[in-house]
């Protein structure tokens, strides 16, 4: 339990530092935020309007005062408004996040459905043709850019066969191509990892011992070998979290899928800094939470860690 407490403390500190750094960044960015917000170039705006907004945002105050106000708003969950739509950043992020989450989870599902069977077969039939195919798949899969895979899939399924839509969100059909793209791209790496984890598991002494007790092979595989491979796999998953997040960004842009990935890329093109800042903070929060979850899963999976303080030899 104290581990989680410690983690939260680290996270709070990290977040504080992060908020300060991103605040600084906003200050350093070129352009005048007020002019951008009022779209001075497009709409006729009086000097008074500019002055009043500037006052409201306290942009003329010294830096530390500004930071203080920023911090106050931050803890009130107010990250400012988007320059483009003028809606609160928090609202934009929260409305679009479920979409990205849906995409990420479906892609993970696809990835597991491909890599677990393939990796398992490659480990069990090591050296046979299925093993070589998995190797080829892994090699080529990790050399293909995910967006190219997406384009090819669009070409096959949408253009020629006209089954699935390629743009936007709506029915479950819209989810198919994007999640297939991301899922296949990620599974290329995972197939090899699963294979090597399982092979290691096969070598363990307790597998031989279980066999000597007359326990069925399938049972040994699922309850002893596979279970033992879970911890390294979860570790690897934690490390590949970055590519999952990056992957959703690319796929969302490719398929015009309205999630937070597309949101931030559009924001970058349009210099919508509040959104960019909001995205960074949001993602860091997400990464930290997921890492905490992963740590907690270790506790569950590895009783030795859990009971370390308890009885020992």
């Amino acid at each position, binding site marked *: 339990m104290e581990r989680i407490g410690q983690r939260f403390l680290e996270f709070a500190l990290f977040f504080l*530092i992060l908020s300060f750094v991103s605040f600084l960044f906003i200050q350093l960015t070129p352009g005048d935020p007020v002019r951008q917000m009022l779209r001075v170039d497009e709409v006729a705006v009086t000097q008074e309007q500019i002055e009043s907004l500037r006052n409201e945002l306290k942009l003329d105050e010294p830096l530390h005062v500004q930071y203080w106000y920023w911090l106050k708003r931050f803890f009130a969950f107010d990250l400012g408004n988007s320059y483009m739509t003028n809606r609160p950043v928090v609202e934009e992020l929260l409305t679009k996040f479920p979409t990205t989450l849906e995409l990420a989870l479906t892609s993970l599902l696809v990835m597991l459905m491909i890599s677990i069977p393939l990796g398992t077969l490659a480990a069990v039939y090591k050296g046979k043709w299925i093993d070589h195919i998995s190797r080829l798949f892994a*090699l*080529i899969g990790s050399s293909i*850019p995910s*967006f*190219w895979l997406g*384009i090819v899939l669009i070409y096959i399924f949408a253009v020629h066969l006209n089954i699935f839509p390629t743009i936007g969100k709506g029915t479950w059909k819209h989810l198919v191509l994007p999640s297939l793209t991301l899922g296949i791209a990620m599974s290329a790496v995972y197939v090899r990892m699963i294979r090597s984890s399982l092979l290691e598991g096969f070598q363990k002494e307790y597998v031989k011992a279980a066999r000597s007790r007359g326990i069925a092979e399938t049972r040994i595989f699922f309850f002893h070998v596979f279970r033992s491979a879970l911890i390294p796999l979860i570790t690897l998953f934690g490390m590949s979290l970055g590519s999952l997040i990056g992957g959703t*960004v690319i796929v969302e*842009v490719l398929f015009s899928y309205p999630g937070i990935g597309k949101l931030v890329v559009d924001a970058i093109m349009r210099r919508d800094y509040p959104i960019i800042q909001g995205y960074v903070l949001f993602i860091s929060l997400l990464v930290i939470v997921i890492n905490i979850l992963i740590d907690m899963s270790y506790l569950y999976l590895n009783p030795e860690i859990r009971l370390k303080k308890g009885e020992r030899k």
Partner: protein
Amino acid sequence: MTSTKMIRLFQIWFPLFLLLLYIVVILIAPFLMSQDPLKINMDHRLAPMSREHILGTDHLGRDLLARILAGGQVTVGVSFLAVILILAISIPIGILSGFFGGWFDRFCMRTVDSLLAFPDFIVAVVLTGLLGPSLFHVMLAIIIAKCGSYIRVVRSIILVEKEKDYILMARTSGLRTMQIVKKHFFPHVIGNVIVLVTLDLGKIILMIASLSYIGLGAQPPVPEWGAMLNECKSYVHSAPHLMIFPGIAIMCTVLISNLVGDHLRDHFTLQNR
């Protein structure tokens, strides 16, 4: 040198040499092309493969093959440059951090750890977001994102080697610090790092292509494989060759880089033992 040792060295360095050769070819090839990758010719837009334009033309009538070769220069060149800069920055910092320790080490480690908390793709996205979309910013972002892990690796190698007896001997026999670093640490570090970097080269190429694809990297009219795939989006129906060839180019390059990296990793770890 015994013959087995020579074969070993050959096994390690030859694939690396091939990779470097491939990179050099990519960088030089455009100069041998006759067609101009930037020349717009609206009469010939979206032309299929022909004798004059071996791979056809794109939506602005530019020769595709020339663009792909020129794009190679950009994509591979920038990746390679990024790799060199990453090494140039992280190796010295890693050595200093590991060798001297103290406050410098602690400071570096804290910074690196907080940086590593971010997925590297996001760092790239954020940096380009704040500085503006450009190939240079993308390269900078990738360098910053990747340096962290390399500094760590170098530092950990140094930490392990530092305690070994032969270093103690060198120090007690009065060798100057720089000499120790150059003669003893460097070979160890370089070997391991080159293996890592070859594996990473593919990832860096993919990152640059991906970032350019979503518009954050190379801006038109710069030919870059990822950007070219972005441009072809609307013509998937009418001119599929536009999307096939740049993709194949990326795939081949990353594939070769990954193969060499895998091979080096398998052999280098064996030799290390």
